[in-house]
Each structure stands twice: as C-alpha cells, then as structure tokens.
C-alpha cells in the first residue's frame, strides 16, 4: 500500500495540469533536426545537425549574435588582443558546469589538447591549426603540448597564441570543436560520458534524455550564468530523415520548426505564412577537371560557364529563391566587396568555343557531368545540359552515382565535370577561397596558380590591415572565377524551412543558426 500517497499526489498534479493544459506545453519547443546526431562529443562531431544541439548544450569562449552572427562574450567575459593580432588573453566569467564545478581555463586546455592529439583521430582537428604549433602537434612533429599556443595562466585566464593574425578567430571560438570539456566526466565514463545522466555540460540547456533515432530532449539548465534570459523549458529534437515526412509532421503540428522543405512541395509551401527563405552561406557550383582535355583549355571552361543562364535556372528550376551567382564567395560578407564573375553571354561563349577549335560545337568531344543522387542535382544538371545544347550545340552526358562513389571519383579526379556545393565554416571570404590553393584537399580540380597561392598565403598571415587583406582576397577570387575558371559557380544556396508562428525571438541569418536561449513561444 505504499503506492497510495504518490497516487493521490499524482491525481492532484493531474488536476492542476488539466486546469492549465497549455502552460506546460507552451514552453516546449519541438524542432526537426532531420537526422540522428552522430555524437554529442564536441571534439568528435563535424555536422550542422550536431551544431544545433551542441551549441545549446555547451558554450565556448564566445557565442554568436543571433542576428548578424558576430562574436559575443560567452564563457569569456572579456578579452584583449595583442597589437600584432597574435596573442589573445581571455578572462573567464564565474560560470559553472551542470554538476556545480566551476568552468576553468584548464577545461579549455584539456579540450584543445584532446582534439589535437593524433590518437583521438578528431576529424575537425584543423579548426585548431590556427594555434601556434597546433598543426605540428596534430601531425606528430612535436609531442610536447606545452609548445602549442594555449595556456591557462590561472583558473580564470586563458592565453592563446596564434600562428598568424587571424581576423575571424573570435568567430572560431564559438564553434563546437573549441568548446571546453569536463575532464573528470570523460575519465570516469570513457566514451559513455555523452550519455544522459553522465554528461556534464556548461551551456544554457542540459541533456534530459536521448533515445537514438527517436528523440533527444534538452531542458533549461539552472546552472547557466545567463539562465535568466532562457525562456524555453524544454526542447525536443526529432531525427526524421525523410523530408516529406518531416514536412507533414510540421503541417500536423507535431513540430515547430523544420529546416528543410521537399523540393516538390516548394510551390505549396511558399503560399503558407510559416514558410521562410533566407540566403545561406553556401555556393552551388560545378568543378572542371583541368588536367584532361577539353576542360584543360581555359577557353572551353569559360565558354561553358558563359553559356549558362543562371537567372532562368533559379527562377524556373530551383524555384526556392536561390540567388544566381557567377562568383564563389556569397554576397553580404562583412567588409568584402566581391568581384564580377562570368555572366550570361552566349555570343562570347560561342566565340571562345570557336577559338578553342570547336566552331558551333563541331568536333567537341562528349563530356560527362558527374552528380550524386539527389532530386535538386538531377533537375539542375538537366537544365544546364539543355542550355549547353541550345547555346553551344554540344552534348553533355549526365552521370548519376551514389554519394560515396561521387566523393571518391571527385577526389581521385576521375571526372570531367562534377556538380558540387560548399558551405562556409565562418563568416569570412577565406573559408571559400583558401580551399583552391595548389594541392588543397578540397581543390579536387587539379588547378594550380602561383599568383593565387601567394595572395591567399599573404592574406592568411602577412597582411594585418583588414582592408588590404580583403583586397588581396578579392584579387584572388578574380583569378578563380573570371580569369582561370577551374569552377563555374551557379547560385547561392538558400535556407528554406517552415517555422511555427508562435515562435518568437528567431532571427534569420546566413548560417541558419538560431541559439535557443533567445527563442520563446507565444501563448
């Protein structure tokens, strides 16, 4: 008969809840994360869905402004930067982990060592290559971590020494790879430390439960220094992979936010007030293999690029409001003016093709355009194929392969043309331009240009003045998209999704990042 009293208590509780049915529900935010997170370990993950969760569970030295994504104080209450831009000294605030322990500078040193340690096999180790000797430590060239540019001067002071002056370093410190980690939890539980009941975090929310492929629930953390600002009590992350199902779940009121819309439903979705579309920090483009004929000829590459009508492509084919682009760095980057790319000019395209020895497309070898299985890629490549046929009289075959086959063919230069996309890591043109240097892991075109390499290297390390640095990057982009054209950009991606109208405090931005601590729900 021990159960009686709790039963009575439950009955009363039930009555109270029944009396105010919406009060509890209104502070529960349900969002569709579209996939099961690979891990909750900030040193392990690399994806966007993981970022949606971790950026609310943990907090780095800085956080991001929900509107323009500029750095704001996080675990660091303040910081100072040396004149040469190399040494950052962070003063930590009086913050606590969910288990009550204070967050110290040592927690950052531990976390960063763990990411750079070759034995961890951390995929995003390069996020810490900005530190002095960070790359050498990760590559095993030095084994003494005290030579790496991060030191805890005392419990509340962290000193970071960079390899080069890095204009966007404070953007990087808000990224999950650089979050602090609770050493004691990892030592106590091993890789199980990320599971509910074991995980210790320092962000505005804490992990309440996590059932893989079913749901992951966060609750407001009362330990957080900024807890007074946090209005949501509970956040449920749903891992629905099927975008059509996710869309239906939203329509049925089972979720408050879904960050994707099925391509076939765009027209229907647009007519609903919950639909939103904003520019994204990403570019959709085609790669040329510059090591094989005929795309080793710059005239051929330019002709192909000039013959594509990007306006029609975005207006009639992709249809979600994508922005036509013939440059690689998306517009709207703080302090970056941008360059002029190759526009739509059929006459110029035909002339270039004739100069290359293929007047009116005669004698032009059949080309293959590689793309991975995806509805959007299929319609985009088909449209471009048609434009080339109409404007240049050449035939391009579309080759559709599965994702991993696509990746391995692309990195092995086993293609002539391939579709690709690139999403920036941080809000600076460098994240779009440094990948094209000679031998860069993401270059994958075989393209190499000495002048380009020099400009990127100078912008990365030698130029301290911000304006001069942007000018160097601009000059580099000019070479990339207008002079040499190893790639042909097509459009700037957009974020498109559905957001319930009861959600407040949600600001559109180019990374589609929405820190939950600013979000509230209207009654």
């Amino acid at each position, binding site marked *: 008969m021990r159960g009686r009293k709790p039963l009575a208590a439950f009955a009363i509780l039930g009555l109270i809840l029944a009396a105010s049915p919406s009060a509890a529900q209104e502070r529960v935010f349900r969002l569709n994360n579209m996939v*099961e997170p*690979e*891990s*909750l*370990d900030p040193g*392990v993950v*690399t994806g966007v869905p993981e970022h949606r969760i971790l950026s609310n569970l943990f907090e780095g030295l800085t956080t991001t402004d929900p509107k323009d994504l500029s750095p704001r104080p996080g675990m660091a209450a303040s910081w100072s930067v040396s004149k040469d831009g190399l040494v950052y000294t962070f003063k930590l605030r009086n913050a606590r982990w969910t288990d009550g322990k204070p967050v110290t500078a040592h927690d950052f040193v531990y976390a960063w060592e763990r990411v750079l340690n*070759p*034995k*961890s*096999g*951390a*995929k995003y*180790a*390069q996020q810490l290559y900005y530190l002095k000797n960070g790359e050498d430590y*990760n*590559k*095993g060239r030095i084994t003494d971590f005290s030579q790496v540019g991060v030191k805890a001067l005392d419990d509340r002071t962290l000193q970071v020494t960079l390899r080069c002056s890095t204009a966007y370093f404070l953007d990087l410190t808000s990224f999950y790879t650089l979050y602090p980690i609770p050493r004691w939890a990892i030592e106590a539980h091993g*890789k*199980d430390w*990320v*599971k509910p009941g074991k995980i210790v975090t320092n962000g505005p929310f804490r992990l309440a439960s996590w*059932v*893989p*492929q*079913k*749901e992951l629930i966060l609750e407001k953390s009362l330990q957080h220094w900024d807890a007074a600002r946090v209005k949501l009590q509970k956040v449920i992350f*749903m*891992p*629905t*992979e*099927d975008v*059509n*199902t*996710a869309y*239906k*779940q939203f*329509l*049925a009121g*089972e979720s408050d936010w879904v960050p994707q819309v099925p391509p076939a439903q765009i027209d229907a979705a647009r007519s609903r007030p919950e639909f939103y579309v904003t520019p994204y920090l990403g570019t959709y483009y085609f790669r040329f293999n510059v090591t094989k004929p005929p795309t080793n000829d710059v005239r051929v590459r330019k002709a192909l690029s000039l013959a594509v009508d990007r306006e029609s492509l975005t207006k009639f084919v992709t249809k979600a409001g994508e922005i036509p682009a013939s440059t690689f760095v998306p517009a709207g980057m703080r302090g970056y003016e941008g360059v002029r790319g190759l526009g739509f000019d059929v006459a110029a395209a035909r002339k270039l093709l004739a100069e290359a020895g293929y007047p009116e497309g005669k004698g032009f070898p059949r080309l293959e355009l590689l793309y991975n299985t995806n509805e959007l890629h299929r319609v985009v490549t088909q449209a471009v194929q048609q434009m080339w046929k109409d404007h240049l009289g050449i035939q391009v075959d579309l080759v559709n392969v*599965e*994702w*991993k*086959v696509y*990746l*391995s*063919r692309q*990195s092995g230069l086993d293609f002539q043309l391939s579709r*690709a*996309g690139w999403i920036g890591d941080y809000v600076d043109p460098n994240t779009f331009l440094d990948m094209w240097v000679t031998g860069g*892991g*993401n270059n*994958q075109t075989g393209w190499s240009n000495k002048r380009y390499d020099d400009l990127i290297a100078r912008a990365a390390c030698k130029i301290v003045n911000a304006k001069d640095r942007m000018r160097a990057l601009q000059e580099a982009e000019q070479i990339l998209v207008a002079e040499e054209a190893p790639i042909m950009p097509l459009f700037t991606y957009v974020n498109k999704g559905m957001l319930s109208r009861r959600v407040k405090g949600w600001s559109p931005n180019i990374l589609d990042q929405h820190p939950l601590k600013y979000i509230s729900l209207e009654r």
Partner: protein
Amino acid sequence: MLGYILRRLAGFLPVLFVIVSLSFFMMRLAPGGPFDQERALPDQVRANIEARYHLDEPLWRQYLRYLGEVAQGDLGPSFRYPDRSVNELLGLGFPVSLTLGLCALAVALALGGTAGILAGLRRNSVLDYLTMSVALGGVSVPNFVLGPILMLVFALGLHWLPVAGWGTWRHLILPAVTLGTFYAAYVARLTRAGMLEVIGQDFIRTARAKGLREAVVVLRHALPGAILPVITYLGPASAAILTGSVVVETIFSIPGIGRYFVGGALNRDYTMVLGTVVFYSVLLLFFNLIVDILYAYLDPRVQVR
C-alpha cells in the same frame, strides 16, 4: 527432435562464416570509405582516424580481427556513431523492429487469413473476385506509396493518428498496416488456394456427412490443412517483415534496425552493415528452422528425423 535441432544449429556455423566473409569483402569493394566526406580531411587527420579503427592494417589482418571479434559476439564500434557499439545500436533497434514486425504480421494474418477463407469458400462469387482484386492491389502498391497516402488521410486529413515517430500505440498503427498490407495480400491468395485444395477432399465430405456445423468443418477440419502453404510462407515472410521494414522505418521515422542498415550502407559504416547482416542472417536461419519444426507438427506426412 532435440538431436535434429542441434544438428541444424551446428549447420548454421559454416553458413554464417560464408555470409560474413562474403559481406566483409564485398563491403570493401564498394568505392569510397567511411571517412570520405564532402569536406576532405587533411591526410594526417585521415591517417589518425584510420589508425584508430585499424583500417590502416592489411585487409587480411582486418578480416581475421573481425572474425575473431564476431566469434566472441562483439560486432565492433560504429564508425558513424563513435560513442556507440554496433551491439548497442542493434540492441536498441531490435525490440522496435520486432514490435513493428509482429504487429504487421498480425495485420497480415488477420486480414489475409479472413479474406482467403471467405474467398475460398465462396469460389467464383462476387466476394471472391472482390477480395482477390483487392489482394492483387495490395501486392502491387509499394509501401513507399501506401505509407504517405495513409499519413495524408489518417494524420493530416482526419487527425486520428500521428504522422510519424515512435512511443505510443497510436504511432504503431499506420506503419503496421503499411507493412502488413503487402503480406496480407499474399496470405489471402495462399489461404484461398489452400482452402480450395482441402475443401474438396474426402475427409471434409465425411465431416459434413457426420452433420458437423459448417463453422466447425471449416475451422477445425479444413483450416489446418489449408494454412500449410501459409505456414511455409510465414517463415521467410516473418524474416522479411523483420528485416524488410527498412522503407517503412524511414518513412515513419521509427528507431528500428532497418534505418541503421540503410544508413550504414550509404555511409560505408563497415561494422554497422556487417553487424546488421550477421544479425539478419541469424534471424533468417532461425525462422526457417522454426518453420520446419512447425511443419512436423501440422502435417502428419512430414517427419523430422
């Protein structure tokens, strides 16, 4: 009987060995690897990761290592979900897939069995043509079509049931019906055929001649014989329902094994795919064994030695 079962179980081992070996090498023949991604990894980082998972060793040594681990029941770590082992993920997913599978099977037997008996008893009647046409439709409609239609009608239209997810009995209905319908159609046709064969036999006439009620004749005398083809089919069907719920699990966002299998294959999560294959194989062998044993009980002509 016990000896027979033990002999069959021992026979599983070489079969499993062949399956594991074939899958292991076929998986490695697929282009791309678990750590290929759009954003290329620096060479050293890739080398660090491969060293961590022993992917830098020669293939034969990886193979022997894997065999050794599987023999001990350890299916290895998942490459995609580094915090979890394959055993853990299968352990989480299997009860879900099993629940869904059993419900789908119940739907298949209840719908299909009833339809089949009725159609068999009223041969060439309107009822017969009608049920068999519906059954033909059921076989022909793929579940990636049926699932979304049911969602549209019962979740978005009528608001009776949730669109997708897992947790309550209400989440179970649409996926179980979607998955069960295909098999219901099959069961209906098989039951009808079995019924037609049995109903004309002498012992049925005898039963009727004894003055038994029609219900008793059908259920007690005719049915056990009539469902033999269904039983034969049930072994592979149960395995197929349990292992083949991949599409339904994805459409309805159900945390079963099927999603790990597909995700694992697409991501070249070698251990995950192999683990699922091993698990599915054991399940398949096991169901066939059960069917053979059931046969011995239901059909006096079959004897197990």
